[in-house]
């Protein structure tokens, strides 16, 4: 379990240390105050591919494929905001400390200016374009994992695509569920298949049906060569993709399947309430907390919703609720400050309907 997070010079974070992180962490704060950046930092340090940063940029409307122009300009546009105050002269670093050795890890991100584009002999050329021009790498992700060693990832853009030649394999099991996207259907299907192969899918389906009674069954079906999670729905003569039934159901399936795949790992959920009917939030939390226990999967979630906090309180019980980690992010002068709100205090505030976000 991750117990400590240190962040330096990453996005809106200048310097941050969070200690005594609990199995459930809920983050809240204003738009642009750094909630998603905190989750990104965590995910990145878990060993996720730097592609995550481009994925979140794309969710924010800044897709790599839309950039054009000078190589240096594109690189700066792609990676510049990774660094605090866009200052690429100072490295960014994210470190985690946890109970297991592989949870003691860090990633250091550096950026090099100029002299990058160069011609090299074809035999050494691993990133060659058609013209024989090789793009060096301006951004560098250096991972260190206790008991494993060091690993370097140098992503670059080629023909409008982000290329990452070597993936970091000693990754801590972590999954990121974004606020606006429900994940790739193929990924969800693969996770369900893994459960099915291990005869675990029935438990999952049973849990899922408890929350959504109209769903009679879930299965993987391949349509047009594309495996997808399909649902048998009451009143329908034919199975249909779960995504066609409900965005909320798909989101919950994505979350639960991710947790079942990431046993002893963590799940990171941005704006957890998105897609869920407010009155269902308590049972959604209940099943997520149950999976968290069963799969020993740590939860990091952000929210804008007061209802969501109250639902977590009801789903978890007063004692557990008090013990979770609550973080409020605030942006001041371009720097994110993170305040820890004691569970006891938050609990009473919810009782008195006092604003806490």
């Amino acid at each position: 379990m991750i117990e400590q997070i240190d962040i330096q010079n990453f996005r809106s974070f200048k310097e941050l240390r969070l200690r005594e992180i609990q199995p459930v962490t809920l983050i809240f704060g204003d738009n642009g105050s750094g909630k998603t950046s905190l989750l990104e930092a965590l995910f990145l340090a878990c060993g996720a591919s730097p592609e995550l940063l481009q994925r979140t940029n794309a969710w924010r409307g800044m897709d790599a494929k839309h950039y054009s122009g000078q190589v240096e300009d594109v690189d700066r546009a792609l990676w510049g905001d990774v660094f605090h105050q866009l200052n690429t002269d100072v490295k960014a670093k994210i470190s985690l400390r946890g109970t297991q050795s592989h949870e003691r890890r860090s990633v250091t991100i550096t950026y090099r200016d100029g002299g990058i584009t160069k011609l090299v002999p074809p035999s050494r050329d691993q990133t060659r374009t058609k013209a024989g021009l090789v793009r060096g790498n301006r951004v560098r992700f250096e991972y260190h994992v206790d008991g494993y060693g060091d690993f370097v990832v140098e992503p670059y853009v080629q023909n409008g695509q982000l290329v990452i030649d070597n993936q970091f394999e000693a990754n801590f099991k972590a999954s990121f569920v974004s606020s606006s996207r429900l994940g790739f259907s193929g990924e969800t299907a693969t996770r369900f298949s893994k459960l099915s192969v291990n005869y675990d899918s029935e438990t999952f389906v049973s849990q899922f049906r408890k929350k959504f009674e109209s769903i009679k069954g879930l299965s993987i079906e391949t349509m047009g060569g594309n495996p997808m999670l399909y649902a048998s729905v009451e009143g329908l003569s034919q199975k249909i993709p779960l995504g066609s039934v409900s965005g909320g159901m798909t989101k919950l399936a994505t979350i639960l399947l991710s947790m079942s795949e990431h046993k002893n790992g963590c799940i990171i959920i941005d704006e957890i309430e998105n897609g869920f009917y407010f009155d269902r939030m308590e049972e959604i939390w209940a099943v997520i907390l149950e999976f968290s226990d069963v799969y020993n999967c740590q939860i990091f979630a952000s929210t804008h919703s007061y209802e969501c906090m109250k639902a977590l309180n009801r789903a978890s019980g007063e004692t557990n609720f008090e013990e979770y980690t609550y973080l409020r992010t605030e942006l001041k002068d371009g720097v994110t400050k993170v305040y820890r709100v004691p569970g006891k205090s938050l609990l009473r505030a919810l009782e008195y309907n006092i604003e806490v976000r």
Partner: protein
Amino acid sequence: MNKSIPDYLKYNILIVCEGVGDKNFLDKFILERNLPSNVGITHVNESATGKSGGREGLGSYLLAIKANRHFEKNIKKIIVISDNDDDMVTSFNSVCNQLKTASLAIPNTVNEYTKEKDGVSVAVVMIPVGKNGNMESMCMPAAHERWGLEKELDSWINNTPAVNWSFGKQCKVRLHALISVNNKKRPETGFAMHWNEKKPEMRISTKHKCFDDFGNVFLKLISP
């Protein structure tokens, strides 16, 4: 983004009292005596929780307020106002226990600020100053001066079950009766809402000398 800031967290000094009547009295007291108005006043809102209000709710309520983001930014001093009731020492200690629940600094004595803890100093004011009683008993001299009826109320109390009640509780009965019999238009008005009365002649004056001891303590604590 100050839209969501509660009025009571806008200033550096936060006054927390037991009930809405105390808060309404303080609002009027500050206004009529031209005291510095750079203070926020709130009270334990028992109806929100269904749990106990009054003094026993102070700790939970203070804990709740601390979760608001404006608390840490703005609040430097807290003044807790509570009743002495029948035993000044026991009541003061009870307030201190509530401060402990809220993880706030605990004063050794009344009417003095503590040293800062997490950037906040705390003072406890017990009313009436230096004697047993409550907000109602503090108001009684002004109420009788305004409306008389002292002997009539003595006689009435002596013929009701309240004759065996404590002085503080008897004062609650007496004040309620006084306010009621002098408000033909709205005899159901209680002490808590009395301070909202718009016509001054229908209201107990907060300028009465019976409030001076409290006023002196209060002014000392809220002065810059």
